[in-house]
């Protein structure tokens, strides 16, 4: 039987104990001499196996643990990473001899050998989507002694090195004995090693003491990498708002992919945070189902191309003009693949003409199923505006807003959708993205012209000539409309002033950065 006074005292005591605990100094403050960085990311990575997912997040985290043979420097040129130097390529462009660096330690302690590289690449070619695309071109892959790897191709294939270099769906080099599916151990050669993962809480990477850096100066993802911070903590913070508030409150050292709307807030914070603009981050694009349904008809796709106004869509998605640009060229000015071919098809926003074309093409008012997701808010905002533009041209858009997992699954079934919204990073090599330039990706674009034009494009070994050949591909994309590139955007992230040495990158990396104080 509870006596009221005892009950009260009991409650009081318990409350005091809780308060006392809360006021006590956190144990971490005194015990810690290790430096660490808390990095707020957009989500929990679905897997830590870089070959099992093409998600940016997985690449961002695991690029600290695994290294590729080649990578991109600050000018998006291919530079060697685990390879000693650029490969020796035979005259017909079919044989690549890749020399490996010597004395590179794996996280398990022993030295990296050529068979580790061969085993890793074989796995990559079986598992990763881009790996599978490369596998179609490869005739043979073998080690030549302990220090060289030889790749023999069926035909010249210009994008090979770029495919090996991209951090997402990475051709990661792993220790041979750690290879398994699913991966249980993460043994790579990177400046950080895998320490611990608590799903939905954090992924911890700690400095690899025996890391052997390259000698060249750091540039982009290449060159010398040094782990100046003891521990990296990647925490999933799916709510964009919380990422903003967290970095403002000093709880995170770095907050990734922030909404452009939060920029004024970041700028007015009295220097508490440093907003980071990563220019030329990527491009949103719309994919058409060319196999089944309404858009199996090319004239109808062209009608849609006429109806939409990419400019209005980009404004709805990104708001601040500092962060987006509306240009018909798929590749930025100054890059080898810059071209304005097909520009007259871009940003037409001509509802009347589109309606006419649609009627002629036999459009009878069928619903147009548009798949989109709120995981990236700009996808959704753009889809809303596009729906209005389509309505003005007499189309009947039907927005299906699903979570990203469902979208990724649904887009594999040609019976379920007509159009979907997604985005990609802006890469220097066209074949890296969008996947519709390859075979078998959702949308299933295939035509005799496509095969011919792309074969020409990829067989050309001379980079100077290849740049010009892209114009033909771009023109074809504007004419056959398998996908529509909407525009280009920059991304916004933020860091604390205490985080020094950070270089803006599409996949943020934290080697060569230090934390002050």
């Amino acid at each position, binding site marked *: 039987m509870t006596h009221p006074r005892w009950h009260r005292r009991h*409650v009081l005591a318990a409350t005091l104990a809780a308060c006392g605990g809360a006021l*006590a100094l956190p*144990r971490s403050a005194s015990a810690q001499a290790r430096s660490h960085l808390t990095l707020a990311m957009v989500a929990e990575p*679905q897997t830590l196996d870089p070959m099992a997912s093409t998600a940016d997040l997985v690449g961002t985290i695991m690029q600290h643990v695994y290294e590729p043979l080649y990578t991109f420097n600050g000018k998006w040129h291919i530079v060697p990473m685990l390879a000693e130097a650029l490969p020796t390529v035979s005259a017909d462009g079919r044989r690549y001899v890749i020399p490996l660096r010597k004395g590179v330690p794996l996280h398990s302690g022993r030295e990296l050998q050529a068979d580790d590289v061969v085993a890793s690449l074989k796995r990559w070619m079986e598992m990763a989507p881009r790996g599978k695309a490369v596998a179609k071109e490869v005739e043979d892959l073998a080690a030549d002694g302990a220090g060289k790897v030889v790749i023999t191709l069926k035909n010249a294939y210009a994008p090979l090195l770029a495919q090996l270099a991209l951090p997402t769906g990475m051709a990661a080099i792993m220790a041979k004995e750690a290879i398994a599916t*699913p991966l249980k151990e993460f043994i790579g050669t990177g400046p950080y090693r895998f320490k611990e993962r608590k799903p939905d809480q954090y992924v911890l990477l700690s400095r690899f003491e025996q890391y052997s850096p390259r000698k060249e100066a750091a540039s982009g993802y290449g060159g010398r990498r040094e782990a100046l911070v003891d521990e990296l903590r990647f925490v999933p913070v799916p709510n964009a708002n*919380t990422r903003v508030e967290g970095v403002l409150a000093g709880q995170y050292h770095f907050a990734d992919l922030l909404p452009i709307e939060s920029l004024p807030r970041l700028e007015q914070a009295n220097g508490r945070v440093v907003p980071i603009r990563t220019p030329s981050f990527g491009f949103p694009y719309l994919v058409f189902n060319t196999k089944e349904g309404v858009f199996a008809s090319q004239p109808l796709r062209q009608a849609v191309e006429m109806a939409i106004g990419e400019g209005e869509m980009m404004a709805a998605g990104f708001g601040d003009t500092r962060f987006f640009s509306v240009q018909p060229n798929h590749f930025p000015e100054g890059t080898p693949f810059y071209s304005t071919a097909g520009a007259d098809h871009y940003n037409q926003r001509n509802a009347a003409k589109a309606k006419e074309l649609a009627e002629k093409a036999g459009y009878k008012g069928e619903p147009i199923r548009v798949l989109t997701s709120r995981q990236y808010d700009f996808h959704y905002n753009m889809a809303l505006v596009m729906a209005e533009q389509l309505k003005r041209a007499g189309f009947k858009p039907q927005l299906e807003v699903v979570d990203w997992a469902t979208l*990724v699954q649904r887009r594999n079934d040609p019976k379920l959708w007509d159009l979907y919204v997604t985005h990609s990073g802006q890469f220097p090599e066209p074949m890296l993205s969008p996947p519709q330039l390859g075979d078998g990706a959702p949308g299933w674009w295939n035509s005799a012209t496509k095969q011919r034009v792309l074969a020409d494009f990829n067989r050309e070994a001379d980079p100077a000539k290849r740049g010009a050949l892209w114009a033909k591909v771009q023109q074809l994309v504007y004419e056959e409309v398998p996908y529509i590139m909407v525009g280009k955007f920059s991304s916004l992230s933020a860091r604390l002033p205490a985080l020094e040495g950070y270089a803006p990158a599409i996949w943020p990396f934290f080697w060569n950065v230090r934390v002050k104080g």
Partner: protein
Amino acid sequence: MHRYLASRLLGLLAVMGIVAVFVFVLTHAAPGDPVAVLLGDQASAEDIARVRVQYGLDKPLPVQFAYWLREVLHGNLGQSIFLQRPVTQALAERAEPTALLAAMAVLIASAIGVPCGVASAVYRGRWIDQLFTGIAMLGASIPSFWLGLVLMQLFAVGLGWFPVSGYGSPEAGLGERLHALVLPAIVLGLLNSALVIRFTRAAMLEVLEEDYVRTARSKGLPERTVVLKHALRNALVPIVTVIGLTVALMIGGAVVTETVFGLPGVGSLVVNAVLRRDYPVIQGALLAVAAIYVVINLLVDLLYMAVDPRVKL
């Protein structure tokens, strides 16, 4: 007593059995393939089929249910597809923040609710009663995410007294963890105090009209003693009942608050599992939460019975 206990336990088993069937049917009727999600964006159809067999997802439903039930009875809730670890382990890891949060929130809810409810009952009809009853109603009308966002803006972002989100750093001690729970506990505590106020008030009102209270008053005892010593003591039983139920409610009901503040608790585990189509986690977590709720209910009823001999079996 034993017969009552036995019949209650049987009832409990029946309830859990129904919950098990229900939970199983629920999760397997869901669209979205967890294997496709696990293997990533562009996995091939053969890969997906292979892993489906690996997880036994290709067998007919009743067979899957039988397997699952057998495992559950052995304490094995299965393996999470996404987290690559046993569901029981995932639950155990996520139990701490939810449990601590529930405890703190109940403390706050009681600390506010009981005194207000008592005052409301004692000064029935006067402005205090109106005020507290009105506040109780307001509390039950505010969406928890709204209150969470407001408090977060005021105290975490504006004043910086508390972390904006999360459960403390990986090596945090209990103090830091509790500190991170203060704001969410205040949100839950405030909103649930509404319930406690109402029940306390109702219980006190009933008790205050009983004969023995009248007797105490006529004996000339000061009102304060009458209220606190005699009335409250007897009203404690339904009050404790409500508090017990509140704890049970919070175990799974703090989902929205956990999401707002980024707490790695059981509620957010289930939400993420639903979004990722992680069937084993959804099933296991719902089952566990239901079991806890049912057990707490039973304990509260037993406590009620033990404490108040007037209650008929």
